[in-house]
């Protein structure tokens, strides 16, 4: 059985111009990402801002064409954006956005907007589409009378439910959630996450859950991938990755989760946040890595299973290819 979604070696470059007459600089937002989403499972994708999480989400949905690499949905390669085949594929893969108010048309009642996927993909007859839209709203916990409301008349959580209702209306197989909860209050976040899990059980959804909130990712994911500067540096079971991260970046990320009663033990990274326009050679993380060695500056580590427990890590030190250094490489070089 083929995986629901399989992405291999995705690369996405953007050209960025500096100044009025400056040369255009190539920015590699995504630099070789491979991932797999299974039916009924959730892959969490975490990383700091600007590490290429959202671009990866757009690439696997086929909203943008990758510069290199392939995306296969149920074994079929992705068609080019805007074609008829691509449009009809939208019924089977959907996206949930970070800002629900921006993702909804503020001039149409949400009932009409939830109905749109049926109109677009010709599902059901015109007569029973309003009833289907009501049903879709009910499935995410909105009242039928709220179908007549405009987006600005709803609360943040209700808007995100409406967005979810629209995304799930066609009963897709794949859902990409791009920071679906970061614009919501903490109390609403839990509701929306529970809703996602319920809908996943109901529909057997494969979910790519993109977030920078590690706890949210841990709550909903079956697997977790940690991204740094356009590459996945560690991937494994959420409990294992978030309890005992193997990659030094993942360790720093996990140690940044606030814990009541914990003293010390926080890894504070040195150096500047990474700039995708100016990628360091070797391991992209080595200038900030507290345990970087000379090897790290020369050779980029591959994402491969660790000998001990088979967890996927991209780090020379974690694989035992190098002894932990002191992170002095940056100053020496």
């Amino acid at each position, binding site marked *: 059985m083929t995986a629901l979604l399989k992405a291999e070696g995705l690369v996405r470059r953007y050209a960025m111009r500096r100044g009025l007459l400056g040369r255009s600089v190539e920015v590699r937002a995504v630099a070789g990402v491979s991932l797999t989403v299974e039916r009924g499972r959730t892959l969490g994708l975490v990383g700091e801002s600007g590490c290429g999480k959202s671009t990866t989400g757009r690439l696997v*949905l086929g*909203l943008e064409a990758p510069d290199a690499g392939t995306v296969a949905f149920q074994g079929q390669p992705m068609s080019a954006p805007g074609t008829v085949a*691509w*449009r*009809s*594929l*939208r*019924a089977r893969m*959907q*996206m949930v*956005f970070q*800002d629900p108010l*921006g*993702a*909804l*048309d*503020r*001039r*149409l009642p949400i009932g009409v907007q939830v109905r*749109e*996927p049926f109109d*677009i*993909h010709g599902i059901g007859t015109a007569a029973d589409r309003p009833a289907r839209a009501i049903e879709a709203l009910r499935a995410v916990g909105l*009242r*039928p*009378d709220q179908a*007549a409301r*405009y987006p*600005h008349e709803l609360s943040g959580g209700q808007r995100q439910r409406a*967005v979810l209702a*629209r995304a799930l209306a066609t009963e897709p197989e794949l859902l990409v959630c791009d920071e679906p909860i970061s614009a919501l209050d903490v109390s609403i976040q839990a509701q929306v996450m529970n809703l996602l899990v319920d809908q996943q059980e109901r529909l057997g959804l494969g979910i790519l859950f993109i977030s920078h909130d590690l706890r949210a990712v841990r709550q909903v994911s079956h697997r977790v991938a940690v991204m740094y500067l356009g590459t996945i540096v560690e991937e494994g079971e959420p409990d294992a990755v978030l309890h005992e991260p193997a990659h030094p970046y993942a360790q720093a990320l996990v140690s940044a989760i606030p814990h009541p009663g914990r003293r010390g033990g926080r890894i504070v990274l040195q150096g500047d946040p990474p700039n995708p326009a100016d990628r360091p050679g070797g391991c992209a993380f080595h200038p900030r890595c507290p345990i970087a060695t000379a090897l790290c500056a020369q050779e980029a580590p591959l994402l491969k299973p660790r000998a001990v427990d088979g967890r996927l890590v991209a780090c020379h030190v974690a694989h035992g290819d190098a002894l932990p250094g002191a992170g002095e490489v940056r100053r020496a070089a």
Partner: protein
Amino acid sequence: MSDIPMQDVTVVQAPPRAPRLRVPPMVLFGLGWLALMLLTAVLADVVSPYAYTALDLRNRLSPPVFMGGTWLHPLGTDELGRDVLARLIYSIRMSLLIAFGATIIGALIGTTLGFLAAHFRGFVEQVVLALVDFSASLPFLILALAVLAFFGNSLTLFICLLGLHAWERYARIARGLAVSAGSQGYASAVRQLGATPWRIYGRHVLPNIASTLIVSMTLAFPEIILLESGLSFLGLGVQPPATSLGSMVGYGREYLTRAPWILLAPALTIVLTTFSVSLIGDWLRDQLDPTLR
């Protein structure tokens, strides 16, 4: 109690969303005036007391009723004894046809080209932007003179020509707003639902930017009336014996001191009509926005 079906409860809970439609008095005036103008234009043949070319040589330059004239010619006559009221009525028909026709043509062309530029980007966008710059930098009067001199004058051509007057404004607005809507937000959300470009632009982008376009149209409407007056004054617009508000003003200018009523009646009509269109456009923009209600 718990047996009550969910639907019944929610129907009872549904808040009454009665649309409160309170029309401000000024807008009411504007609507009334515009309705009067439209009625006049449609029923010109019925309401006009005389034919607009009928001469009454015994009553030349007779003043209107309120300036000591007779009820025979309520708004007076011009130097050929033609009834000003009759000419005004036919002028309203002609000017409204030209102004509405040209405004709508301009908005259609401009919005379409703007959307095409926003949708295809790249080469199409460059071509549209070059046309916009060309159109914005060329004095319109020179273009109008050239076209009318080469192709002769007909009403259809004249309306189409005036339609080209302000299209570049709509094109700029439509392109800019469609690009910003497409890069993030509702348009990209609908696109990734699998919607066709027709649906994205017709159903989502157009209603969202309509308020800006409507304001632009209400600005262009008076301009076109005045432009028509100018061209008619130069002899390039509406050709005699046909008449328009602009040509009446241009013509009445010669009798400004002796018979000001020839000029005043059409001038007042232009002012009130353009004012009404602006008022209604402003009000309509607020009404079309559900977030402002």
